[in-house]
């Protein structure tokens, strides 16, 4: 392993931490972590893991660096935003300057079921750095299918949460959420401050270090949630929520989010510079709440009892009650999907 060749002096402070030690450091060098999403959480976790000497990191992200990312996405500098560099590639570049002794593989692309299924099969652990629940449910299925742990994280405003899932032991994301959230707060709609990103990523990364160094006993079984602005911290036991009939972690799993028909669908509407986005299952959106959120976020809105139209500057997105949306001003399906998820979750 490449990770083993370099001087151990650089990890000396981590080796002195008794629960890791020299043995744990070697285990880290032999580990392979998959990071899905290289936004705020993903880039913070990736940097900590690279500094800690995890031997192999695979980072997948579909996005490029934008000016508005710089306020909290720590691997990126102004130059990356000016050049609209893909996040995964920009992350690999900076991580290489930080630790040239580890293997970093960056993938610029969509974390769809097929791709993640393949990547998960080769990883020891998955870190959630995504910004939407569609991808999280795909990760959830991949992790339980391949029997590897994954660590969920999320944040918005000054509020965040982290939860570690160990297949065969922990209730999964389905059990936790019961149903797929139809409409959540996003960083686009409610904003976000840098410290909550670091706090969530700190929880995720500490859990990863425990798992990779054979300290499974130290893993928090609890779902932890906190608000740094309002000074709240809660740790919730999850034992009671496991559902035997769960299609991901129950007795007869079918991993539903790996099926194509359960994915969000996009179609380019010919000659109109418009993409139609359709959620996997019909939603029941509250357009009024959504209109308020969008207005608070500074967008022009208009609409009628059947639809809500949001003007983002570059695009206009028209959303219907059942979750269907038309994204005008683009023929790029990936961009339309991204805009949809950034506004609706």
């Amino acid at each position, binding site marked *: 392993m490449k990770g083993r060749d370099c001087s151990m002096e650089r990890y000396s402070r981590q080796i002195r931490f008794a629960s890791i030690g020299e043995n744990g450091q070697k285990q880290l060098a032999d580990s392979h972590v998959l990071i899905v999403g290289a936004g705020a959480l993903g880039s913070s976790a990736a940097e900590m893991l690279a500094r800690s000497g995890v031997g192999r990191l695979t980072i997948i992200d579909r996005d490029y660096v934008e000016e508005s990312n710089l306020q909290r996405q720590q691997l990126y500098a102004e130059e990356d935003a000016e050049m609209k560099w893909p996040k995964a590639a920009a992350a690999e570049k900076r991580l290489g300057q930080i630790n040239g002794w580890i293997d970093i593989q960056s993938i610029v692309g969509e974390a769809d079921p097929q791709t993640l299924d393949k990547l998960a099969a080769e990883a020891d652990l998955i870190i959630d750095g995504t910004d939407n629940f569609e991808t999280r449910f795909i990760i959830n299925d991949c992790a339980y299918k391949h029997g590897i742990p994954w660590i969920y994280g999320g944040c*918005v405003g000054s509020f965040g949460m982290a939860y570690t899932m160990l297949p065969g032991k922990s209730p999964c994301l389905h059990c936790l*959420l019961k149903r797929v959230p139809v409409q959540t707060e996003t960083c686009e709609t409610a904003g976000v401050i840098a410290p909550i990103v670091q706090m969530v990523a700190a929880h995720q990364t500490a859990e990863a270090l425990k798992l990779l160094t054979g300290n499974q006993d130290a893993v928090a079984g609890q779902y932890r949630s906190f608000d740094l602005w309002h000074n709240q911290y*809660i740790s919730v036991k999850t034992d009671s929520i496991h559902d035997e009939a769960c299609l991901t972690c129950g007795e007869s799993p079918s991993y539903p989010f790996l099926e194509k028909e359960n994915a969000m669908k996009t179609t380019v509407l010919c000659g109109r510079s418009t993409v139609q986005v359709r959620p996997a299952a019909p939603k029941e959106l509250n357009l009024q709440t959504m209109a308020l959120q969008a207005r608070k976020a500074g967008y022009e809105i208009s609409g009628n009892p059947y639809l809500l139209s949001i003007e983002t500057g570059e695009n206009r997105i028209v959303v219907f009650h059942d979750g269907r949306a038309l994204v005008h001003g683009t023929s790029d399906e990936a961009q339309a999907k991204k805009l949809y998820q950034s506004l609706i979750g």
Partner: protein
Amino acid sequence: MKIKVLLFAHLQEEAGKGEVELELQGDTVKELMAVMEKEYRLTRLPQAMIAVNEEFADEETVLKEGDSVAILPPVSGG
């Protein structure tokens, strides 16, 4: 009976405070949620996670005097 309710994220903003003490008529989480929705005009409650005394619960969970209920909405950001 007296119940303490902890509100997180947008729910806190909507209620104007992070902690509420209330006198509940009824004894299930479902009844509590109905009160919260009506009196504090909280939105998107049905998709929130509920913890009673730091353990996850569901709508049928029966509450008792002095319980502490936390309402945790899922958020997508990352």
